[in-house]
């Protein structure tokens, strides 16, 4: 994000001329290459799909590994002396946190949530607002009848976020201090985020057991990367002058790290923690698939009776927990470095003591009222929501026509074209585009990834998925950039949209699975809608921020030259916000790919379906192969859309 603000503004014309020149030269080279290679390709392989001779079946060895685990996990020392301890510890830790929360009584938990939010956000209006948010969030969780499920989920979150944060900081330390480690780790972190959790859920269950352990470790894998990335970023971004100063004072490397670099990176690290929490929350439902319980289980079981209202009643608390934690950690982050005036009772240690005292008092008072949320204070939203959903789906009939036309005129031609293209020409195309926008190294990575898809034997399915991902990506970017432009120009709109965007990002996709199918049918269009809903908020947010941070002087200058609003936008703001827009594209790719699996649950088929099938049928080879193909698609798309950030940054 910091790169956005420091984008070079002066050198743009020179840079552009240089780029143009280079592009022209590359185009020339490419057309020569095409003239030679295309006839060669036709002569050698003809047309059509990836040849079966060039595939390697990896599912056999994977299934064997699967079997080995099942046969040996009760006797092999690796399990008895190491892995089983891990899983038992995980279960005990989550149980302990849950037991602790439960023993506080509902009033105690409520008081703790509110007081900690207030303490973190500071005194004054902001603190009151954040505390009120916390109060509202917990109260609604209780009112919806989800108190106990919420506690189970919070317990799982506390432990998994703690482990993910610790792991993230360790990785981040290594990556931040040593450049080589950073480069080596980057693809690992990418894979951790893009490989669908469904694909490795099964091996984790086999090794660690159903329920808490598997869910916990999968959550940690998915949630740790942001913490690692931002810690590394913070460490590397530390002001060299400060480091120089501390070095000249004779501080050793370790001392410098502890007294200068880590404190300077605190803000980034807190942002990382914030992101880690959000990522962990998005795994709640997936955790329920292996029996971790909590809110996810409520969402998942509502699906079997096709009960949108019940799913929503469990989905809303997940959103609210996310909002509560997001506002609290964000407020704490903003306060870092602020000077706190004076001492007094409401600052420093005495304030913490006050928070602690308040919680203990509330817990004591609450236990007299009963441990769990009073049954009478709940409200069942299930039937009104279901009625509303039915009314909407009955009255919106154009959606079905829309999805049909979209499938017929956009998705089918796109997929057919991709499938029709000879496999080697697609490889050449990827190589050419990647080289055009990047370096030969990017071209090599992109082509190798594309080739890996073919070697894995999922060429056809991957192209099907690719066509869906491309369509979803275009839709997301068009809508997101447009909404971002409006948000950047009207601050009020942004404030209004904020809770909506929060909900879109953190509401488990399983909740809107049924309405999407009811509106759009079991088609690939439904899968695309689900992907757009999930990926849109990030694109809107990044675009808005990028446009906002455009140098006001440049805008002022263009205005004084008599540029209209439209000209300002097209010729000044958007070009200057290019780094932000590129980041938006990157996030669009990552997030759309993250919901390919969910798309598989509403008729998306292809790779997403295979991943789900791998988990539910216990076919590890199938699920893993499809999961790796999704990662490869991500690599290809990333390399052919992300050139300049790497060159300038």
């Amino acid at each position, binding site marked *: 994000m910091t790169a956005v603000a420091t984008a070079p503004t002066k050198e743009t014309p020179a840079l552009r001329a240089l780029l143009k020149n280079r592009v022209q030269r590359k185009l020339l080279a490419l057309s020569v290459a095409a003239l030679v290679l295309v006839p060669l390709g036709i002569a050698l392989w003809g047309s059509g799909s990836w040849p079966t001779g060039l595939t390697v079946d990896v599912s056999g060895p994977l299934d064997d590994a699967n079997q080995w685990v099942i046969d040996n996990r009760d006797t092999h020392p690796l399990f008895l002396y190491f892995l089983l301890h891990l899983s038992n510890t995980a279960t005990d830790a989550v149980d302990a946190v849950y037991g602790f929360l439960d023993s506080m009584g509902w009033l105690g938990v409520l008081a703790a949530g509110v007081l900690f939010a207030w303490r973190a956000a500071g005194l004054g209006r902001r603190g009151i607002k954040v505390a009120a948010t916390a109060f509202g969030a917990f109260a609604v969780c209780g009112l919806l009848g989800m108190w106990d499920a919420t506690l189970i989920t919070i317990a799982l979150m506390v432990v998994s976020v703690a482990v993910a944060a610790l792991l993230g900081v360790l990785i981040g330390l290594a990556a931040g201090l040593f450049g080589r480690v950073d480069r080596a780790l980057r693809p690992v972190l990418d894979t951790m985020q893009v490989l669908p959790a469904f694909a490795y859920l099964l091996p984790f269950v086999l090794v660690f057991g159903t329920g808490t352990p598997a869910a916990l470790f999968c959550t940690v894998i998915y949630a740790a990367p942001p913490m690692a990335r931002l810690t590394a970023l913070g460490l590397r971004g530390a002001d060299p002058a400060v480091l120089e100063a501390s070095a000249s004072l004779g501080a050793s490397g370790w001392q410098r790290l502890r007294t200068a670099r880590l404190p300077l990176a605190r803000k980034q690290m807190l942002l990382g923690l914030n992101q880690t929490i959000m990522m962990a929350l998005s795994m709640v439902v997936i955790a329920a698939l292996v029996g971790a319980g909590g809110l996810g289980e409520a969402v998942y079981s509502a699906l079997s009776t096709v009960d949108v209202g019940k799913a929503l009643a469990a989905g809303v608390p997940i959103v609210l927990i996310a909002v509560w934690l997001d506002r609290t950690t964000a407020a704490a982050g903003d306060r870092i470095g602020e000077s706190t005036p004076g001492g007094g009772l409401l600052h420093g240690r005495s304030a913490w003591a006050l928070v602690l005292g308040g919680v203990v008092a509330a817990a004591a008072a609450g236990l007299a009222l009963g441990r769990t949320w009073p049954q009478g204070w709940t409200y069942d939203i299930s039937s009104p929501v279901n009625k509303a959903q039915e009314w909407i789906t009955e009255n919106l009939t154009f959606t079905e026509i829309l999805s049909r036309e979209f499938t017929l005129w956009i998705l089918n031609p796109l997929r057919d074209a991709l499938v029709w293209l000879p496999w080697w020409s697609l490889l050449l195309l990827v190589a050419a585009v990647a080289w055009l926008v990047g370096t030969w190294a990017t071209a090599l990575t992109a082509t190798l990834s594309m080739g890996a898809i073919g070697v894995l034997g999922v060429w056809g399915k991957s192209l099907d998925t690719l066509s869906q991902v491309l369509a979803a990506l275009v839709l997301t970017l068009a809508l997101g950039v447009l909404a971002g432009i409006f948000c950047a120009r009207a601050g009020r709109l942004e404030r209004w949209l904020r809770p909506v965007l929060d909900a879109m990002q953190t509401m488990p996709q399983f909740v809107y699975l049924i309405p999407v199918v009811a509106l759009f049918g079991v088609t690939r269009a439904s899968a695309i809608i689900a992907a757009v809903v999930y990926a849109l908020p990030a694109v809107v947010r990044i675009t808005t921020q990028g446009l906002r941070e455009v140098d006001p002087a440049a805008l002022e200058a263009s205005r004084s030259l008599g540029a209209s609003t439209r000209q300002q936008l097209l010729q000044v703001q958007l070009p200057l916000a290019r780094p932000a827009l590129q980041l938006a594209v990157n996030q669009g790719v990552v997030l759309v790919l993250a919901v390919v699996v969910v798309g598989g649950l*509403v008729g998306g088929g292809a790779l997403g379906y295979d991943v789900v099938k791998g988990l539910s049928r216990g076919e590890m080879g199938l699920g893993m192969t499809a999961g790796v193909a999704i990662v490869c698609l991500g690599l290809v798309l990333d390399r052919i859309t992300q050139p300049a950030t790497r060159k300038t940054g």
Partner: protein
Amino acid sequence: MRIVRTTTAVIGALGVLTLSACGAAETGKKDAVGGDKTVKLTVPSWVGAQANTAVAAHILKNELGYTVKTQQMGEVLAWDALSKGDIDAIMEDWGHPKEEKQYVTTKKTVVKGGDLGVTGHIGWFVPKYFADKHPDVTDYKNLNKYAKDFKTGESGDKGEILEGSPDYVTNDDALINNLKLNLKTNYSGSEAAQITAIKKYAKEQKPFLTYWWTPQWLNEQVDMVEVKLPEYKTGCDADPKKIACAYPNTPLQKYFNADFAKNGGKAAEFLKNFKWTTEQQNQVALMIAGEKMSPEAAAEKWVKENEATWKAWLPKK
């Protein structure tokens, strides 16, 4: 270099701590909560099985004084958990030959728990309103004639057959191929998506063809008629690629963890005796899915009204 040394020291210390704190880990986790009087059941995702589990749990709790823990998870995962003793019993299984061979025959960690009393059947179904208008659609030989009626955006020129969740056993792609039908499978990917699609079609009175099964609570709300496929004979589904016959009738089974079956006392005996009919299961399933009652409430209501049935399941004193 100090960092490297410190890190090594920390890692070393952690390692020693881990090793010294414990010897071999417990493989079977103990349940502190209810001690021996705890039964762990899996709750499958479909409603019929939820009904079994809810009724069993209700009686175990209220008549036999057990603590019942339920855990929701996928079918294959449940088998694995059953083998490890993370759960004690699966109350409804639609046939998992691979797992059966592995855990029952080879490893002997799982034992059969007998029939549930309900017979499951998979097949191809069309809605009754369509079959009434075109009676000959219920024979697979005439399906090609109606393929155009089943066309959707996903199926192109062919007719669509709606498929369910990846959990389910399906031979449909082979059937279409071997019976030379002008159909195309469309995998909805989840039971919820499939049911939503069927309900939507039924509301609009549109023709559709779907992979479906009985018993299922939706059958009470949407009347469907089965399409006749070539008769099932033992062994006709041996080679997955050459299948050209209907799905078999499956008497649904119960499976227990081997230790639980031996040492589970009254709970194991009760679960072994648990056996009811398709109609009885559907009564409970419909309360859960149709009337949106919680499984616990539905089980309580059924137990109150059908004392004679479940009294026979209780262990003899």
